[in-house]
Each structure stands twice: as C-alpha cells, then as structure tokens.
C-alpha cells in the first residue's frame, strides 16, 4: 500500500457525526464554559478580596497598639491578674529595635518544661547557700542541694574546682539536709525549702535587633537576690568554678558571669545576653558592651514598643499561621503550574520579589503570611486577566 493510499484510508476512518452534530456539541461546550467562567470569576474575586484583607490584617496587626483588653500588664500565668501584677522595668536599648517579646509562660508550658527537665537523680528538696558576708561577688559562693533521694549536689562560684572538692568532703548532715561545717569562713545567706530552679518560673524575654547583632533581655520576678543567684550559678557551675565580677547596671548591683550580665531591680532579676549572626548561626558575644546603651524609657514609650511587637507574642499562633500560609502558598503555586506554566512562573517571580522585600523588613517567622496573601492576590489577578478581565 502506498503512502497516499494510507493517507486516503486514514482520511476516511471513523463514522462522521456530521456538521450539524459537531456544531451543536461545540455550542454546548461553549455554553457550559461560559457558566464555569462566571462561577470561577466569582471565586477569584473572593480570593482577591480575601488576599487584600489578609495583607491589611497583617499590616494592621503589625502596627496596632495593644488595647486595654489585651494589655501587656496582665501576665498570662494569672487568670485573675489585677493591676498589682508586677511588670519589668521599661528598659530599651539605644540603637537597637525591640523585635520580639515573649510574655511569661503559661502554667501548662511550665509543667511541660518541668517535666522535660526532670532530674534522673531526684528532685532538689532544699538548697542552702553560703557566701562571704562581705558581698555576694567578693568571695566564694557555695550552694548545697539536698536531693529527694537523700543525695547531695554542690555548686559554686569564685571557687576553684579543688577547693570545691575539699568542701564536698567536709559537708555534714543537719537533720534532713546537708550544710557546711561551722568552722568554714562562709556564712549561710539563704535557705530555700524548694528548688530555686522552680521558684522563678514566670519570665519575660525581650529580643532587640540591630542588623546582625541581637541582645536578649530576660526578666524574672524574684523575691530575693539569692534565688536568682542560686539559679544562675547552679545552672553554670557544674564543672568549673565561675568568677563573677561586679558591675553596676542602671544604678543597681549586677554581676558579669560567662559573658552574661545579671542584676536585680525592684524584685525582678534581669539577665542580658548578646549574640551576633555569623553566617547562619547566632554566636554569643559579651553582653557587657551593651550596658552603656541600656536606658529606662518612659512607660508609654515602652508599651508602644512592646505593642508593635504584639503580633509576635504567641509563638504557637505564629507557627500555625506560618504553616497554614505555607501550605496555601504551595497549593496556589502548584495549581497555577498545572493550569498555566507561564502564569505560575510570573507568580513565583512576583512572590519571590515581594517575599524578599518583606523578608528584609520583617521577622522570618512571619515570612509566609503576607507571601501567601500576595500569592492569592496575584493568582486571582492573573486568572481574571486571563479570562478577559473582571
């Protein structure tokens, strides 16, 4: 069979439906398309409006000062909180922007944290602290934890490891607890009938940013200086002796310990740390140079600064929103890619540029929220234009 015969046979294949039937079928298809387009346009307009609303909401939340009903003066931990609840001092850092505020933990978070850090050698049932009666930071500080199993744990500051070892061998039983022998030069300055680690559970955290530099100020309400000192020292003195040095911070006595600066003021323990972004990791830096830039601001100014970061206070909401927004964005892009690759490419480029701009201005954790809103907006616009405009 020749190619021409093959072509002729192929041209005659099948049973023709006829011009009339093809015309009717085409008209029906176009008619159905018209209805589908109208429905799709409605959906796209809704998506456009929602996108704009989401962007406005994000922008609004970013700048909205906290109202009375959501005042920062009410700690999360107390449902019956009143105006007597303590607030940390309105401290700001010159040259750095208050970037994030974490309010005191909730009870459930505290329980979870307690559970996760539970000791395998028993709980601390009491702690006795010994120090020089001249001053906290002038001489050795020794803490003796009595454990629930009857054991003992020593920690110290301004004391060599050898000296601490000698002290460990000299401690004596005192009823149900352990103490230093009377002949020691150190005097007992505090006795906690509980674990100091558990006594400071409500903490504020303020993160300040200036480019790649970050400073973190933590504030915990504490009834005595020794609670925080015991807590801090016990956290960091497991292996080597620490050598705290005294410093004055905003008129209060403080201590420099392992690049951190701690001080006490109005019943709050403040802890200042500094770090710097090197590559993609944050490396700790001495916090002492930042001290000169600390200032006690006017309360209204401070609340305004905190209010501007109010949308970041609940990290769980941020994470949830970010995940949802990311999923929405991915679905939008995937949908576009399946329908129209060119539009998908335009969408990705536009969103990438918008996202980059936002990323440069906003915390990375919220990157996906306006990105998703922008995606839906561009998506809807492109689809509307592709269907002949609205």
């Amino acid at each position: 069979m020749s190619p021409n015969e093959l072509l002729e046979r192929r041209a005659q294949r099948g049973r023709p439906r006829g011009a009339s039937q093809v015309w009717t079928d085409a008209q029906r298809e176009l008619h159905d398309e018209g209805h589908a387009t109208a429905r799709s346009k409605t959906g796209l307009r809704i998506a456009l409006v929602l996108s704009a609303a989401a962007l406005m909401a994000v922008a609004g939340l970013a700048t909205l000062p906290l109202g009375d009903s959501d005042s920062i003066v009410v700690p999360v931990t107390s449902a019956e909180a009143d105006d007597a609840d303590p607030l940390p001092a309105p401290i700001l850092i010159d040259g750095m922007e208050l970037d994030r505020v974490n309010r005191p933990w909730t009870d459930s978070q505290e329980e979870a944290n307690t559970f996760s850090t539970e000791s395998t050698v028993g709980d601390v049932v009491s702690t006795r602290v010994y120090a020089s009666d001249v001053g906290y930071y002038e001489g050795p500080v020794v803490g003796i934890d009595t454990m629930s199993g009857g054991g003992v744990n020593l920690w110290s500051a301004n004391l060599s490891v050898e000296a601490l070892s000698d002290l460990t061998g000299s401690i004596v039983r005192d009823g149900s607890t352990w103490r230093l022998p009377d002949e020691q030069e150190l005097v007992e300055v505090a006795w906690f009938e509980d674990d100091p680690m558990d006594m400071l559970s409500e903490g504020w955290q303020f993160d300040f940013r200036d480019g790649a530099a970050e400073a973190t100020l933590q504030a915990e309400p504490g009834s005595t200086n020794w609670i925080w000192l015991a807590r801090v020292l016990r956290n960091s003195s497991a292996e080597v002796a620490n050598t705290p040095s005294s410093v004055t911070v905003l008129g209060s006595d403080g201590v420099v310990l392992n690049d951190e600066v701690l001080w006490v003021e109005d019943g709050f323990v403040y802890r200042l740390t500094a770090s710097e972004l090197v590559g993609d990791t944050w490396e700790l830096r001495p916090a002492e140079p930042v001290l000169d830039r600390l200032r006690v601001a006017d309360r209204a100014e401070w609340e305004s600064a905190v209010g501007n970061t109010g949308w970041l206070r609940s990290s769980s909401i941020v994470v949830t929103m970010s995940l949802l927004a990311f999923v929405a964005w991915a679905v939008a892009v995937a949908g576009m890619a399946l329908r129209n690759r060119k539009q998908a490419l335009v969408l990705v480029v536009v969103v990438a540029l918008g996202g980059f701009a936002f990323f440069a201005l906003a915390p990375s954790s919220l990157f996906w929220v306006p990105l998703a809103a922008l995606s839906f907006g561009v998506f809807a616009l492109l689809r509307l234009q592709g269907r002949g405009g609205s």
Partner: protein
Amino acid sequence: MAAKHQQAERGPTSDFGILEELYPQLRRFAAVVADLDVDPDDLVQDALCETLRRHALHELDQPVAYLKRAMVNAAASDRRRKSRWKSLLPRLAGDSRSADHYPSDLSDLEILAPLDRAVLFLVDVERLQHELAAGELGLTPSAVRKRASRARARLRAELGPNLSSVPKEA
C-alpha cells in the same frame, strides 16, 4: 462572547453555514492529523470551539485555514501530552503498555508528526500547490517542501519494505 455564538444563525453565510460547507474537508483533514486514538470529529469540535472563543467564523478571511491550523496545533499538543505519559507509563506498568497490540496499516503513519501528516495529505493526496498548502498551514512554501521531503524520506526508511511505492521527490 456568548452573544457572538448565538448570532450565528443557520444560513449559508452564517457560522453554521460555513462549517457545513467546510465540514467534509475538515473531517478528512482531522482524521489524518489526529492520532488514531482521537476521534476526528472531536478534533474538529475542539478547533471550532477554540476558534469561536476568539472569532466568529464569518469574520475570518480564510476560516478553513484557521480551523486547519487550530487542528494541527491541538493534535500536536495532544501528542506532546501523551508522549510525556508514555515515557512514564513503561516505568510504572512495564513496557507492554506502550506497545500497540493490534497494529494496522493506519498506524503506520503514526511515526510522523501531525504537521508532517498534514503536509503530506495536502500536497500528495489533496494535490494542493506548495504555496496553497503553505497558506493553509501557516508555513512558507519552502518549509512545506522540506517537510514533505523529510516526511517521505522517513516513511521510506521506516516502512520501506511494506510500502508499494513511495513518491519520489518532485
């Protein structure tokens, strides 16, 4: 757009009249250009819809050329889409699915692309001049000559023993 469709009344100068007049040659063309698993009338319908979305047939200077190009484009797109799946199917279900269990003479022409089949059909079967075929397919006359020549050469190379006569080059 809907109004445009509805205004096509059934008369000799209406869109339907134009289609009715062109249908026999469009149907034959579609049967050649479309792959064997595509109903030729479906291809005619797709091309008609694609055209009517943009123009009424009576607005076009050469509706037959427009419709034929639309059919070639639709057939080529369909072939590309299917070739992507065919490249995946053997991996998913084994090579047996990609083979035709019931080969026929009609399937011999499947080795050619839709546009090449269109060129051969118009030039060798419908006996159109290269210039006219080029006008209908949106190609240049030289492109039509080259395509026709290469298509014939490919048929000779692939199906030589089974073909009684493959036209020599003009």
